[in-house]
Structures are given as structure tokens and as C-alpha cells.
């Protein structure tokens, strides 16, 4: 099997596993980091403190600005619902985009049910939000703009620096979902006026079930907690801190720093090499914003090729459809629809994503397999004319 779905999740780096294992058993730092009255707990708290500092340093942030959550989905919920609830008296309008992750869209829908109004910006054909379109959507009662850094289906990078500055000029809070970009693209919170950043561990070879929300302290961004309990994480997110998860996420972050920038360049080469195999193939389209795309995510539309059929025809490969599916029905991707693809085109789209453990032979083999299957499916189609 060749794994080509690093945008969905990544395998945990063995070095991360080693660090995590040291926080689980009696001999290790297993204790509750909140139990600081004895050495076990203090040692666990020290591990959490160090991890918090390591993760903060990736954003050039103060460690106290990092709030641990169960992942980017929870971070998005806390950022959007938490901010909206706290600032509802100042305004009830939110701006986001049509191509956001479901965690952002669904949080916005939940707020609509509570009386908020949400503007969902349509991106340009290349998937990027035009600044002018954003500016025109701003109203006097707009309290929050939430735009993702990198799209999970296409890899398209938004100009969040410019968007953050527009938000700041208008006195509007700015949140970005950086689940796909964290530790791959730089964010310096001392330079960029972003207020809230959602990050995840499992996209960077860390464990699933842990993420964080960056919450700016100067000027302070106030939120209403979404999970009540023992007032952990400065009262913003209750629940015993999972030391092993947090330490794992920090180790994964440090490894990203160690591997960068060579790793990203290598992945960009794999993208080129993969696409080179398709130079003779007609009827294909790459859904991307050239010059503004994360190289590890490759969204390709093959005309006349059903994506489920393509996946089933390549049982040795693990890649995904461009569409999100549930067990009962397969719905066309909202992201691809927003950038102008028809339902048919969306059903002809696959997402291939490379990562740290992708080898040259994997790229060549998978390209060959996919190319052959595309040709086989087209040869069976009564509509395909060469």
C-alpha cells in the first residue's frame, strides 16, 4: 500500500511516539499536571510548560497564548462560538468563506440559529478570496472574520496577512483555521495582527486528539468557554491536560522545524514528478492557485472518470475523493462547488497528498497506477472520445 492522504492525517513520527511513551507509565510523567503539590504532578506540569513554549515559539507567541484543545475542530468551535458569545452585544455579524472546513461552517450555522448573521464569501475561480470582496462584506456590526490559511481539499493559500490587516483597520477580530498550514507556512503573531489561530497535531506527524487555539493577549481577546469544568487553560477549556498528547504535539512541532525547509521542497518536487507522468494525459485539470498553493495537496479533476471508481481501481493506493462523504450518501464537495466545479466535475476529482514518508518510487508507482486506471475507465466509457 502507498499512503497518499497526508492531508487527511499523518502517521505519527517514531520520535514523537518515544516522547509520548515517557508520559504514560508509573516510571514516566503520567501524573495530573494540575497536581502540583507533589513531584509527580510537578514533573508532568513541567513537561506541559515546555511543550507549550515549543508550540508557542512556532508562532512567535507567548506560551500563555496557547490553549490546548482536542484538535482543530474544537479550536474552531471555541474561537468562533466563544468570541461571538462574548461580543454579541457589540455586533452579531460574522464573515467567513464558502470553502472553510465544516468545523468553521457548522459553528457559523449554529450561531445563525442563535440570531447571528453570517456572510459566506465566494472565492475567485482559483479559490482565493479577493480583498475587495471581503471589504465590501464588512458591516458596522461585523465582529469576526474567519478565513482559513490553507484549504484542506485544494491546498490553496489565502493571503491571511492582508486579511488580518483589513480586519484590524476595521476593528474586527480575525480568526484563521491553520490546521493544514501549521508548521508548514510561517505565522509570526508579532508581525501579523491575527487574533485567533486554530492548529492541529495530527497533520504534522503528531497524535490525533490534540490541538490548540492561539488566543492573543495584547490586546486581549476575550472568549466564552465552550467546555465547562475545572477551569483549566485559564478558564477557556476545562479538562485534565493529556500530558502525552501535548508532549507529542510539541515534539512533532519541533521535528517540523528540524525538517524544514528541505521537507517542503522535497514534497514540491514530488508534486512536479507526479504531474510529469501525466503530461500526455488529456482531459485533466488541477484545482489550484498557481504560486499560492501548498505543494503537498494536489486536487485533480479527470474528465469522464468517477472518483470512487478510480479509487476502487487502485486498491494499492490510499488517496481520497475531492468530496466529503458520509456513510449514507455521498455529497459533492462544497469547496469544489464554491470554486465553480459542477457536481459531475466534483465527482471526477481526487485529492492526492504527499508527506514526510513519501518516497520517489511511491510517487512514480502511484502516478503510473492512476494513469493506467484513468485510461481503463475512459476506454470503458461510451462518451469518451479521443
Amino acid at each position, binding site marked *: 500500500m502507498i499512503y497518499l492522504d497526508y492531508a487527511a492525517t499523518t502517521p505519527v513520527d517514531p520520535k514523537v511516539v518515544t516522547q509520548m511513551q515517557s508520559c504514560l507509565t508509573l516510571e514516566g510523567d503520567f501524573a495530573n499536571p494540575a497536581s502540583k503539590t507533589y513531584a509527580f504532578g510537578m514533573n508532568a506540569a513541567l513537561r506541559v510548560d515546555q511543550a507549550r513554549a515549543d508550540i508557542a515559539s512556532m508562532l512567535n507567541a507567548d506560551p500563555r497564548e496557547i490553549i490546548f484543545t482536542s484538535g482543530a475542530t474544537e479550536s474552531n468551535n471555541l474561537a468562533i462560538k466563544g468570541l461571538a458569545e462574548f461580543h454579541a452585544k457589540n455586533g452579531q455579524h460574522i464573515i467567513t468563506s464558502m470553502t472553510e472546513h465544516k468545523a468553521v461552517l457548522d459553528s457559523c450555522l449554529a450561531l445563525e440559529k442563535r440570531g447571528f448573521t453570517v456572510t459566506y464569501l465566494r472565492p475567485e475561480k482559483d479559490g482565493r478570496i479577493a480583498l475587495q470582496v471581503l471589504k465590501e462584506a464588512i458591516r458596522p456590526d461585523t465582529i469576526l472574520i474567519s478565513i482559513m490559511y490553507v484549504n484542506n481539499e485544494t491546498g490553496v493559500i489565502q493571503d491571511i496577512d492582508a486579511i488580518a490587516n483589513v480586519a484590524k483597520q476595521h476593528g474586527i477580530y480575525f480568526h484563521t483555521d491553520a490546521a493544514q498550514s501549521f508548521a508548514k507556512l510561517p505565522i509570526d503573531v508579532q508581525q501579523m495582527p491575527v487574533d485567533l489561530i486554530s492548529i492541529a497535531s495530527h497533520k504534522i506527524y503528531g497524535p490525533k486528539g490534540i490541538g490548540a487555539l492561539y488566543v492573543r493577549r495584547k490586546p486581549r481577546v476575550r472568549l466564552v468557554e465552550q467546555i465547562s469544568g475545572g477551569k483549566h487553560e485559564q478558564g477557556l477549556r476545562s479538562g485534565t491536560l493529556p500530558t502525552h498528547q501535548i508532549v507529542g504535539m510539541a515534539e512533532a512541532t519541533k521535528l517540523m522545524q528540524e525538517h524544514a525547509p528541505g521537507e517542503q521542497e522535497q514534497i514540491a518536487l514530488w508534486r512536479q514528478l507526479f504531474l510529469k507522468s501525466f503530461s500526455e494525459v488529456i482531459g485533466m485539470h488541477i484545482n489550484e492557485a498557481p504560486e499560492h498553493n501548498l505543494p503537498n495537496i494536489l486536487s485533480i479533476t479527470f474528465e*469522464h472518470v*468517477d472518483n*470512487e*471508481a478510480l*479509487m*476502487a*481501481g487502485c*486498491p494499492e493506493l490510499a488517496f481520497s475523493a475531492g468530496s466529503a462523504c458520509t456513510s*449514507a*450518501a*455521498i455529497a459533492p464537495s462544497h469547496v469544489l462547488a464554491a470554486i465553480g466545479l459542477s457536481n*459531475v466535475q466534483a465527482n471526477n476529482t481526487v485529492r492526492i497528498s504527499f508527506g514526510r514518508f513519501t518516497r520517489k518510487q511511491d510517487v512514480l508507482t502511484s502516478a503510473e497506477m492512476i494513469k493506467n486506471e484513468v485510461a481503463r475507465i475512459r*476506454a*470503458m*466509457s*461510451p*462518451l*469518451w472520445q479521443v
Partner: protein
Amino acid sequence: MDFYNKIITELYRHPTHAGELTGADVRSTSAGNPGQSDVVQLQIIVKNDNITQACFKAHGAMTTIAAAEYLCQQIQNKTIQKAANIGSQQIKIALDLPAHHLSSALLVTEAWQKLCQV
């Protein structure tokens, strides 16, 4: 593990009736709306009342390809009279089709019924 069951996957991956027949004695039909749904083309050659060759081309979901392959396997070497009653229900059961892909069985049956009239 496959997303679809073994029967569908096997029919889809290794069809023996995919392709096109040519010649004056080929009976041909198709069903489906290009651009809006899956499309199936069925072809047969009948000699002495017997279907000596059956062939398909299919565009769309793998379940449609699998259903068309299954139908061709079932009708080949049968008389039209005997094969005419092969329909959606038989295809659905034989392939253990998921509910949201029932349209594949309906489409192939539509093409087959049209071909029986030719």
C-alpha cells in the same frame, strides 16, 4: 478492505465484456443522459435465437460498470426470450448493491429492456 463488496469490486476491476462490437449483425442500444447521469451502452450478436456475444460500455459509477458486466455475463449464451426477464431486482440482489446506487441497476435494466425490443 474495499469500500464496496467483493462482488462489485471484482466485476468492476476485471470485466470480461467491456468493449465494443462491430458488424452488420450487432444490435445496439444505450440508456442515460450524458452530462446528467451515468450512461450505459449494450451490444449483442444473436445467432439462431441465441445471444452469442454480449458487450457493454459504461460511463459513471463503478456500480454501473459492475452491473453492466453482470448483465452481459448473465445474458450471454441464452436466448433473448430466456434472458429478457433479468431485471433490477436480480441485479440488486446479485451485486448486493448499496441503496444509493440502485440507479445503476435501473439504468442497466432500462438499456437491456430497450435492447430486447430492437
